[in-house]
């Protein structure tokens, strides 16, 4: 039954009327988005436009203030009467933990565990969440680290790795959980320029495998080659969306054009 529903609904994630408020600040204002299996979406927009917050709602790093998220045709959370007379959604910790193993995330600041070596970082979720045995977890973690080209850094602590290497460990850590969807929140924004390439190459290789990925980025050149679809966010809502070629080369609307023009200026 569950599989039939999953097959029937093309979208692996379906977002409806997503809102996020931080106190009086209304950061995300009604986003609808369907993410198809195997699709690669780049989310672009100015700083403070709410693009990272949208991404962070998808694995509940931020709790949506309003709206619904479906994963594989299953609505997440349960409804209950809210304070203001309407309904609000509540999410149990167990459900969120399960969702997060299926929707992985790579952060701008890596967020590696400093008291663990590279391989221990990758093993951690396998040991504690997937409850794998130590040997199996080590083998699986090693496989992921080989994949990101860090086979010779297994027992090195994060502080002894470059930013690019740290981010690759973080990618391996997310991959180890075998997520169905991978979220990248500005994965190269805190890297020195010469280290950006190695991380983008890894992300590109993952894209080639047909993984479902969402990438929030300022690397428009990379977004162009990476994405099946580009979403331009302004004021917490989707302002323009289309193919990479459409949005980035031939933007139709004024603010998208202005945003891209600013980038073009900076490039020269």
């Amino acid at each position, binding site marked *: 039954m569950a599989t039939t529903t999953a097959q029937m609904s093309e979208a692996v994630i379906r977002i409806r009327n997503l809102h996020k408020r931080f106190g009086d600040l209304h950061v995300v204002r009604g986003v609808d988005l369907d993410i198809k299996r195997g699709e690669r979406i780049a989310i672009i927009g100015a700083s403070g436009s709410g693009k990272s917050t949208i991404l962070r709602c998808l694995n509940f790093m931020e709790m949506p203030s309003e709206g619904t998220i479906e994963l594989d045709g299953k609505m997440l959370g349960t409804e209950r009467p809210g304070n203001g007379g309407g309904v609000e959604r509540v999410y149990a910790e*167990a459900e969120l*933990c399960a969702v*997060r193993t299926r929707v992985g995330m790579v*952060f701008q600041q890596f967020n590696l*565990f400093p008291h663990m070596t590279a391989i221990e970082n990758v093993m*951690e979720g396998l040991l*504690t*969440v997937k409850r794998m045995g130590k040997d199996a977890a080590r083998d699986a973690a090693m496989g992921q680290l080989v994949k990101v080209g860090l086979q010779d850094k297994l027992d090195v602590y994060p502080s002894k790795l470059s930013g690019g290497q740290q981010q690759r460990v973080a990618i391996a*850590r997310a991959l180890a*959980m075998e997520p169905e969807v991978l979220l990248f929140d500005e994965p190269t924004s805190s890297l020195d320029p010469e280290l950006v390439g190695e991380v983008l190459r890894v992300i590109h290789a993952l894209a080639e495998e047909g993984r479902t990925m969402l990438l929030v980025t300022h690397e428009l050149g990379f977004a162009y080659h990476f994405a099946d679809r580009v979403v331009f966010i302004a004021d917490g809502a989707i302002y323009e969306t289309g193919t990479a070629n459409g949005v980035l080369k031939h933007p139709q609307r004024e603010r998208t054009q202005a945003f891209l023009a600013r980038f073009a200026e900076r490039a020269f």
Partner: protein
Amino acid sequence: MEYTWDFKIVLDSLPLLLRGLVVTVELWVVALAVGLSLGLAVSLARISARAWLNGPAIAYVEIFRNTPVLVQLIWFYYAFPIVLGQQLSPFTAAALGLTLNTSAYSAEIFRGGILSIARGQWEGARAIGMTRAMTMRRIILPQVMRRMLPAFTNRAIELAKVTSLASLLAVNEIMYEGRLISSTYYRPLEVLTVVALMYFLLIYPGSYLAARLERRLAARG
């Protein structure tokens, strides 16, 4: 000023002092081990968002931090029986007072440490599906122990010396034995010199090892 030091008396009483040293170590170990564990529990209550948990935790910490240890020990020995109708042995009263006092201080160290860990650590763990409890145990607390090692070391050193207050409840630890010998032979200077030396030999190896551990962890970065 003429004073002839005479350590012979002290050497004769060495078995007594060593017996006292054992009691001091017992007080120290019990209060430190139980105090740290209890302190962790209190700190978790203290940072909880639930008022019925953090309210009492705040009161607990503040009461123990803002009253003298000596008064606390005396209170547990003399007032506790009146309140609960159960007389405690001097050792139990002293151990209880020192333990609770240590737990209040270490709760504050734990709390400071937990709050000092960057939010990204929580997020990194959450993003791979770890629960709050798992994250606390596997990710946050190990880093807190590392970061707060100097503070915990200070607390342990302080506690080792504060156990001497138990002598006022007639707990036969080293200070008590020392005072007993002093007043018997009228050789307080010699006795106290040796007692001080014994405290030093007890405490210093621990602080030396802690400093070495700190350096090793720092080298790892």
